[in-house]
């Protein structure tokens, strides 16, 4: 009898713990969970915004994200900017900062070096492609015009930072796709030509940094088709490992293609990684897949864009992709993804022809919960 009571108490206690969490979980594999109710973007709903993350480490993870410019569904272009700081388990607070110093624009690009943000390029309200660049000082809350981009004016470029140098390249100017990269040195306020991108010229790609190497993937190429090649840039020599060939200094290394192009089985399921105008964020120490060889590794998460809401996880160490829980809010193109405090967020974007302000956070280690 006593055993029965103990058993009863245990069952009831367990059910209470589950119910009191306020999040009912659904059965499923640990594919990650999108939390949809993060404080929405503070400015008017929009797409084609630019962003940067301040105080990034060598892996692109910083402390404060800045999102601004872009355009609304009424084709109004913006120059306002907002900062996002994570609080609590699944939320952000926003604050409106100084409006961007340059003209209102869409499709600009951003990066951060040495505690300052840099935003430039894009398309203005008169559909001119732009080459100006501006520096944001968060301490002064002030924008300063810096040396213009020396390459052709363009939009939908990508940028990343390695060892206090910003690299900006690829993009489109209405006629031409680009593969050239230029590097900005804040200490001399000057640009120099970097090594041209190793893959197809493209627009609407995504870039990220890990271990002071720049990665560029996805996008749309000259044939107006989404491209499937994937490259990594390093300024220093990288020795070969179990998954990569040796890389020379200042070179682009070809990584596994993002479609099923090999005779091996690892890419048989690579059905819809290809896309353009997607969003991406990087998280370190993801513990999902415990028991599998990739547990605890740094991962990049790719979602949205022209391929819809499917989400893919890229294991940076092994150069392999696996599917994750699809993006749960309305799928967007031309959105923004960023990592702050090792937490991955997606905000703004174009959905059904309309700019949105919804913001979501991805929890790769959680079981999918359709109610949040």
């Amino acid at each position, binding site marked *: *009898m*006593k055993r029965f*009571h103990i058993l*009863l*108490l245990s069952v*009831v*206690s367990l*059910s*209470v713990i589950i*119910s*009191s969490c*306020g999040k009912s979980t659904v059965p499923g594999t640990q594919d990650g969970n999108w939390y949809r109710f993060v*404080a*929405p973007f*503070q*400015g*008017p*709903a929009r797409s084609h915004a630019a962003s940067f993350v301040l105080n990034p480490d060598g892996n692109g993870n910083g402390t404060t994200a800045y999102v601004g410019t872009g355009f609304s569904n009424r084709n109004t272009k913006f120059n*306002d900017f*907002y900062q996002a*700081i994570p*609080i609590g388990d699944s*939320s952000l*607070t*926003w*604050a*409106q*900062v*100084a*409006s961007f*110093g340059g003209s209102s624009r869409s499709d600009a690009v951003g990066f951060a070096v040495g505690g300052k943000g840099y935003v430039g390029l894009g398309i203005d309200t008169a559909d001119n492609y732009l080459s100006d660049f501006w*520096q944001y000082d968060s*301490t*002064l*809350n*002030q*924008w*300063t*015009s*810096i*040396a213009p981009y020396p390459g052709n004016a363009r939009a939908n470029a990508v940028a990343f930072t390695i060892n206090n140098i910003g690299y900006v390249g690829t993009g489109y100017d209405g006629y031409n796709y680009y593969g050239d990269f230029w590097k900005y040195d804040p200490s001399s*306020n000057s640009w120099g030509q970097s090594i041209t991108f190793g893959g197809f010229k493209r627009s609407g790609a995504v870039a990220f940094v890990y271990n002071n190497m720049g990665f560029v993937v996805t996008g749309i190429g000259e044939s107006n088709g989404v491209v499937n090649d994937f490259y990594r840039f390093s300024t220093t020599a990288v020795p070969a490992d179990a998954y990569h060939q040796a890389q020379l200094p200042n070179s682009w290394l070809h990584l596994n293609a993002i479609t099923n192009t090999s005779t091996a089985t690892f890419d048989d399921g690579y059905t819809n990684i290809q896309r353009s105008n997607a969003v991406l964020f990087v998280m370190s120490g993801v513990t999902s897949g415990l028991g599998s060889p990739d547990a605890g590794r740094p991962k990049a998460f790719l979602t949205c864009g022209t391929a819809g809401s499917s989400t893919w996880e890229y294991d940076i160490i092994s150069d392999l992709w696996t599917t994750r829980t699809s993006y749960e809010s309305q799928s967007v193109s031309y959105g923004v993804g960023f990592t702050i405090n090792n937490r991955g967020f997606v905000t703004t974007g174009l959905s059904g022809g309309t700019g949105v*302000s919804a913001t979501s956070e991805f929890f790769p280690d959680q079981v999918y919960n359709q109610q949040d």
Partner: protein
Amino acid sequence: MHRRFLFLSIGFVLIIFYAFYFNQLKREFNLSQKQKGLIFIKVKPIQTNLGWGYEIEVDGKPFIHQEFIPSIFGRRGFATKEDAELVGNRAVAKITDSQMSPAISIKDLEELGIQLKPSDTLQIKK
């Protein structure tokens, strides 16, 4: 002994039941408020070393933490608590007016009589 244990168990089960029931009610209430499009917004002035700013909570969750005057160049807080409240309320009015964006423009600041300096809209060239 058995009887006492039984009562304890029943009491515990009842507490659990009410906790669960309350949690369900809370969830349903939140859901119905969302379905009705109702949101609860609170604005409060905050004082920092920059001066006065404001915080806005939506549905009990922090949304905006604005320590300095939005939109202008420079990190300058509002001169008075009243100014901060005034601009915070303009931001709230924009949310509740279905504009959905509490963004504040220079025009908003001017309309609300916030004292601006020429340097607030200055652009700098390197």
